[in-house]
């Protein structure tokens, strides 16, 4: 068997439909590889950026402390980014992720301290509120057929306003949480291996991404999410209950954001209603740099993980170099545009 035939057999065993691909030249081969492995581009960019900053900064950057620090810094955006990835795979967008996150964290804190509920119960309520806000998003989008951009734009403002009105913008201090409700800070605990420090939040982030990657690839629900994002009419005709899939995606997104809210308390110690203001844009940035198509149905959640890490590497690397923070924004902006350009180029392979 030629190499190409082996390739085709493997694909045929795993896939429902197979496109017979005849590679023409190196560029076409590269294009094909990138098309079939969407996380490859961000992974290459990530490795290159680590190598770049490593060579400029040496051990200061290449230490296990600095590298795991990047993980800690991107964990919250990454968890929210996982929620955002699911939504964007359905060709939607969720502008309310940051607001759901901070609202959930405030509810966890206030229910514990204002009403004296056990922290575990308050956390459960916070997770439920997050899921419920996600349900509202999904219901309005799937049942009432409103565009996701509009719905989540509205819910973003409503959730954020509720957060401020409910909390009176009062911060619950880290010391109080530590003595009275340490469970709220669960995700802030850490294990350290050598100089590497992994917080539970980081571990949760990585496990969540791996779990979602598996679910999206190997379960019926996961394939349906891709199908709805790629062509909802075709999915509907093939018997996918698109409305239920959409509602479940937004609910899951809400739930994950609520977990991000819990992890946020662990990271900053306190419950602060002013957190997470730009999490929606940052999560979309991670998703786009991670190669998930904004037009839905294409990309892998592992790409989002790499996308978030690229942003983290650039931020820390540039700060360590002593560059003005504006340079980080400038380069990230360029990366976003480059990522979408690459996505468009890769898409041509299927035409």
């Amino acid at each position: 068997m030629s190499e190409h035939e082996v390739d085709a057999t493997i694909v045929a065993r795993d896939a429902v439909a197979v496109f017979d691909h005849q590679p023409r030249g190196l560029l076409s081969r590269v294009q094909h590889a990138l098309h079939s492995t969407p996380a490859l581009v961000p992974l290459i960019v990530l490795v290159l950026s680590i190598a770049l900053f490593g060579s400029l900064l040496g051990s200061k950057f290449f230490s296990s402390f600095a590298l795991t620090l990047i993980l800690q810094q991107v964990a919250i955006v990454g968890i929210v980014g996982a929620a955002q990835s699911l939504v964007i795979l359905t060709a939607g967008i969720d502008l309310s992720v940051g607001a759901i996150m901070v609202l959930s964290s405030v509810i966890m804190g206030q229910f514990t301290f204002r009403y004296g509920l056990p922290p575990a119960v308050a956390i459960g309520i916070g997770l439920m509120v997050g899921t419920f806000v996600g349900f509202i998003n999904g219901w309005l989008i799937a049942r009432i057929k409103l565009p996701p951009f509009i719905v989540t734009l509205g819910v973003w403002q409503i959730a954020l306003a509720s957060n401020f009105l409910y909390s009176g913008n009062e911060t619950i201090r880290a010391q109080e949480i530590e003595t009275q409700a340490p469970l709220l800070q669960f995700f802030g605990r850490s294990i350290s291996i050598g100089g590497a420090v992994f917080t539970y939040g980081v571990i949760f982030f990585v496990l969540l991404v791996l779990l979602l990657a598996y679910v999206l690839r190997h379960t019926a629900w996961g394939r349906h999410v891709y199908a709805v994002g790629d062509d909802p009419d075709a999915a509907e005709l093939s018997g996918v209950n698109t409305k239920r899939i959409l509602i479940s995606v937004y609910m899951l997104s809400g739930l994950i954001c609520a977990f991000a809210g819990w992890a946020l308390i662990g990271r900053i110690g306190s419950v602060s209603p002013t957190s997470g203001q730009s999490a929606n844009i940052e999560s979309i940035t991670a998703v786009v740099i991670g190669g998930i198509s904004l037009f839905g149905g294409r990309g892998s959640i592992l790409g989002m993980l790499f996308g978030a890490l690229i942003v983290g590497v650039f931020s820390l690397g540039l700060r360590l170099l002593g560059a003005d923070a504006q340079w980080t924004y400038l380069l990230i902006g360029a990366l976003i545009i480059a990522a979408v350009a690459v996505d468009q180029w890769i898409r041509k392979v299927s035409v």
Partner: protein
Amino acid sequence: MNKLLLSTALCLAVMSAPTIAQDAVSACLITKTDTNPFFVKMREGAEAKAAELGITLKSYAGKIDGDHETQVAAIETCIADGAKGILITASDTSAIAQSVKQARDAGLLVIALDTPLTPADAADATFATDNFLAGELIGKWAAGKLGAEAANAKIAMLDLAISQPTVDVLRDQGFLQGFGIELGDPDKWGDETDPRIVGHDVTAGNEEGGRKAMENLLAKDPSINVVYTINEPAAAGAYEALKSIGREADVLIVSVDGGCPGVANVKDGVIGATSQQYPLQMAALGVEAIKAWADTGAKPAPTEGKAFFDTGVALVTDTAVDGVESIDSVKGAELCWG
């Protein structure tokens, strides 16, 4: 005849009633947001004073910090409403200047509260904390606390925003001067050459930003032992970063604001010292000034030797340092806001 007199008097009374209503002094308070405890306190102070003086007070606020479009709309509303004066905490100190000029041209007295406008004389007066002094106090305290070790200090500067707002610059530069570091351009942070400064980073004034900025600077130099923070939430975030590497006990954190959670953090030893400001006072004095302007046409005069009206500042710490006047956290808690 009597009847005629009586009806004339009645007519006059009826006619003059609306005139009296129009003459009732009204004032506007425009804050950055209406959710930040600092501005909530400010509004409380203004409302109490307005009620006392019989002034109608209308309050407006931006949606989020930095939302100066809503503030411009509020200024226009106040002009249309026939207000006598405006008290404003500008979200963008230069962008707002044109609208403020419009209000002053229409005969309103405009007082900047807490944050001076750019240029400061764009408003009729500024009622604020001496932010440079607030910074200087914590700088002197930190230097005094370290003693001879101050010469080898490693300092992290956790500022507010890249745009370098006036309050941010004043506190930062005040701290450096108080600590004994030579300033570059005093209107700008980040241009100092003293090797004791490890670096500047921005925090957005909240816990999340404080933690990340602290981590960034620690990655640059893990031996940091003095941390300046723009406000207490940023300080709480920085403390979490230090705690995660087990260095919370051997680093001095100083801050500015004097909010109640911040003062509690002084008591708990999270923050070494903080400079307390008095938002209630700013607003109450501002309302009084508008009343005086409406009654006599007199504009408020700045505090002697300063370009603005100083509403006071006090250093809150439980470990007093010789030569730096301070109050303890118990007294600070009585005076705190939020």
